[in-house]
């Protein structure tokens, strides 16, 4: 009997201990909600979720947002002060809005305690996309830039080279200028049944393709306009998007449509990438995923045939060619003001931006692009390429575009400015308006946006952006 009593007492004590320790364990674990656009872009968080939960006392809940709805979803939650997210991944163009409305925590203090090696982050990504008002508000997750992708095999084909030389009077090479882009696009546009590099085409082939959806199409125009020295505003915040150079840039873009697939105006990122890697067009401007995904034989028909180059420019009066590839999109991570455990959140940000970053930027299954100097100096990590040299060529090409990059507008209202601009551009591309009419309309709408947001605040913010771009050598008067 006594033995039974002792055993029962022992059992009760054991169960009590387990329950108390279990409850205590759950109490110290914090649930952190992370919001990021879905698919390949949230994949790195999914891969590292278990590791993070094992190393830190956190439970991770991932919220996958639609690519085009990131701003509206985050903004809605911020405005309603729901505290739904602790860590947010977003496009840098939203940073100004989020900072000025006080939705994010500054990260300088955390970075001092636990460095994320900011000196290893490429300059424009750190200075323009992670900082606002000289404070660090975000860490990079994706280092995007637009680059030129072309079919090396076609450009190097002797028959095509000879035919081009004969028709245009100069050597066939990846285009340096936007005028050459039109010539080459025209040259390679062929009908089904015609010959291309010695082979009979089974379907129509196009010289080029372009982005056609409203969310980011402005960047394809800025690639052209910025290379003529174009800017967003003048010093008094008058829009500079309907200058004669701006019109000329748009006319060049409109002209290129005749050498693009007919449905190109519906193209988003996936469709544009597919047009190139399925072998339907000779060249395109796109994000740097094209090089990595195009090297994957399970999805690409142009493995080993992809060349990367500088986004073309326009020839300036002094004879030089200015290249300004737009540093479009990119992704950064921030901690929200309502975060329940900022220190733990920063450790997650640090893991993603530093320790784990090489693994996911070098994967063809994630949508992230290199953003650290060390990423560009480790070609051997990019195993999807068939050789070290091929990986190096890819990384050098991407880096060159970043170094000459044209910064995106990141002040408050950027989303509105760019949406209106894209709308005007799409009207011009769809021939609903002439380039002049479309850009005049966009300029007048930009003025309305500026007035509604407060011209003085906007002017102040824009001037601080320009100053930062100038100080870092990314803006010229």
């Amino acid at each position, binding site marked *: 009997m006594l033995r039974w009593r002792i055993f029962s007492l022992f059992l009760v004590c054991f169960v009590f201990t387990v329950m108390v320790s279990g409850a205590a364990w759950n109490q110290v674990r914090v649930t952190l909600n992370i919001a990021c656009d879905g698919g390949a872009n949230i994949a790195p968080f999914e891969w590292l979720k278990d590791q993070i939960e094992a190393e830190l006392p956190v439970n991770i809940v991932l919220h996958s947002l639609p690519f*085009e709805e990131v*701003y*509206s979803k985050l*903004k*809605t939650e911020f*405005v309603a002060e729901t505290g739904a997210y602790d860590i947010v991944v977003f496009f840098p163009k939203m940073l100004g*809005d989020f900072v*000025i*409305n*006080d939705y994010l925590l500054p990260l300088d203090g955390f970075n001092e305690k636990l460095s994320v090696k900011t000196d290893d982050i490429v300059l424009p990504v750190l200075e323009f996309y992670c900082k606002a008002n000289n404070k660090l508000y975000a860490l990079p997750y994706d280092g995007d830039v637009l680059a030129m992708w072309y079919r090396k095999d076609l450009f190097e084909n002797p028959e095509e080279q000879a035919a081009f030389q004969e028709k245009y009077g100069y050597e066939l090479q990846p285009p340096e200028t936007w005028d050459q882009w039109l010539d080459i696009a025209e040259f390679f546009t062929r009908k089904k049944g015609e010959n291309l590099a010695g082979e009979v085409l089974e*379907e129509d082939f196009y010289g080029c393709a372009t982005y*056609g*959806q*409203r*969310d980011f199409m402005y960047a394809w125009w800025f690639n052209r306009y910025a290379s003529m020295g174009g800017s967003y505003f003048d010093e008094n915040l008058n829009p500079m998007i309907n200058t004669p150079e701006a019109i000329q840039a748009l006319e060049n873009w409109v002209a290129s449509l005749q050498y693009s*697939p*007919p*449905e*190109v*105006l*519906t193209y988003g990122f996936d469709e544009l990438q597919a047009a190139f890697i399925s072998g*339907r067009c000779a060249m395109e401007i796109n994000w740097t995923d094209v090089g990595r995904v195009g090297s994957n034989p399970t999805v690409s028909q142009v493995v080993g045939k992809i060349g990367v180059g500088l986004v073309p420019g326009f020839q300036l009066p002094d004879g030089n060619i200015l290249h300004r590839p737009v540093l479009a999109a990119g992704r950064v991570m921030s901690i929200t003001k309502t975060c329940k455990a900022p220190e733990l959140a920063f450790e997650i940000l640090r893991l993603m931006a530093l320790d784990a970053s090489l693994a996911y930027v070098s994967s063809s299954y994630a949508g992230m692009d290199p953003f650290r100097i060390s990423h560009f100096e480790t070609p051997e990590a990019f195993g999807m390429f068939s050789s070290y040299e091929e990986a190096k060529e890819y990384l050098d090409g991407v880096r060159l575009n970043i170094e000459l990059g044209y910064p995106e507008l990141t002040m*408050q*209202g950027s*989303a*509105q400015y760019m*949406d209106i601009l894209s*709308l005007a551009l*799409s*009207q011009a*591309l*769809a*021939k*609903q*308006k002439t380039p002049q009419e479309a850009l005049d309309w966009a300029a007048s709408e930009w003025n309305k*946006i500026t007035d*509604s*947001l*407060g011209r003085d*605040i906007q002017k102040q913010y824009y001037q601080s952006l320009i100053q930062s771009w100038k100080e870092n050598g990314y803006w010229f008067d």
Partner: protein
Amino acid sequence: MLGHMRQWANRNIGGLFLAPSFLIIILICAFPLIYSIYMSFFSWELASPLPKRFIGVENYLNIFQDSRFWFSLLRSIYIVGIGAILQMVLGFSLGILLNREFKGRNILTSFFLIPVVISPVVIAFMWKMIYSEQYGPLNYILNVVFYLKSVPWLSNTSVALLSIVIANSWEWFPLILLVTMGGLQNIPDDYIHAAQIDGASGWQITRWIIIPLLAPVLLTITLIRVIEDFKLFDLIYVLTHGGPGMSTETLNYLTYLKGFKFFSFGYSSALSILQMIVVIGIAAILVKKILIKD
């Protein structure tokens, strides 16, 4: 005294039972509506830290001066008008055809009802594939069977809005079909037989017996479809995002852009109020017709 109370209770007991539901309706319908009207008199830019500011009817005046509003309103009317005609013609004709007894009628009827039960977003993606200029089956049929050129269904400004109307009509004509078939069951056979004995043709029976008897129910379903089509969003969002250019930007889509892309809450509230007024106007005309028919 007790008698008076009982009399009062007898008179008002219905109202008392209805009161909780009425209160809930006020809370979930009237409050947001009143709040929207209230917001429409403010400049409230959520992208900016500036506080909201009372501006009277300025939002409305700006909207009336904005050509984007008028064009988007016209597009909404186009979708509603053409869509209603297409849905009505398809749904009513098939309803008449399927009302006859033949083998496999039930299976065929169920087959036609599939679009109504599929999620609109799934339908939108399906049509996106169908409309694909290069690989879509629609253009393939045009090329191979009819030797016609491919049509840029979604990338041409003159065709894109019609493409949306077609996809929307395909989704919703079965509802008209269902209502037509239900209505036909209620028409006494005697009327049809009497007309047949008098020598009326099939067309005459349809024109002079079936259509007049089905008119109230068809007008009611048209009213529902008009209201729904005016609010069409999912198809536009998935298929075209309002583009190319502004060619498929309807009033509802514009309101969404202003509200949830630009976060101009005052302006978008004013837009939604105007949209509501337009829908109520159209609904009032149709309701009047229904009541006259009754």
